[in-house]
């Protein structure tokens, strides 16, 4: 089960498992994001390449407008996925 919502401080809170079956929900939400934002992955257990595609697409759109995403509280497994994908050079990432 995957969930995505704005937290009280304005950060985007993700939780659960972001697999290919949940991408439409994530994409719809991220398409509504218009400014620089923080994605809080403290409760996100899992992400696959389908989720990476959404992050990449959103970052390209925001950076072209002078904005961008910062991803915080990334667990070790997702951090490995980011590392193998070369995401450190295109996102600001903080681990847990």
């Amino acid at each position, binding site marked *: 089960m995957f969930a995505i919502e704005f937290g009280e401080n304005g950060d985007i809170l993700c939780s659960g*498992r972001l*697999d*290919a*079956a949940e991408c439409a929900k994530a994409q719809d939400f991220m398409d509504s994001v218009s400014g620089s934002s923080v994605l809080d992955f403290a409760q996100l257990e*899992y992400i*696959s*390449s*389908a989720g*990476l*595609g*959404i992050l*990449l*697409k959103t*970052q*390209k759109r925001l*950076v072209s407008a002078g904005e961008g995403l910062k991803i915080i509280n990334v667990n070790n*497994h997702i951090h*490995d*996925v980011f590392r*193998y*994908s*070369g995401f450190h*050079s*295109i996102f600001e990432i903080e681990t847990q």
Partner: protein
Amino acid sequence: MAGMHHKLTILRSYWRGAHADDTQSMQKKFTRSFDSLGAIYEFTEDVLTSGDVQDAARFPVHLAMEELFTNMVKYCPGNDNEILLDVTTNDGDVSVVITDYDVDPFDVTTPRDVDTETPLGRRIPGGLGLHLVQHMVDSLEYDYHDRQSTVRFTKESG
């Protein structure tokens, strides 16, 4: 190609035979759809829990399972055949065999042309799935014969 199939058979015989007392194994067929991913996760998690597989190995197994399964769904959408998953654990190590029937060949062991140093402006979403699998599992094998694709991967606990 016949040689690859023979090698795969030998490996599976060794895995199941040498440590039979510690082995947990389950097979199940799943509908060719992204909607199967939740059930695949539950099925795999049940086997990993029964086999007392450590957390460090679970994430890569689930990731490889999803990427390989969705790859089969994406590249053969008109096929109604179910996809067979076979998950085996032995002393914390995991072996998975995924079998797809009546399909064209797609060798998932072929290195992917993914440049992870490409600047954001030239990055194209997609293509990372098999790249991740190839880096995060300990072995990956592909066999094709009689229009049947078989993918086997392993992940050790250490």
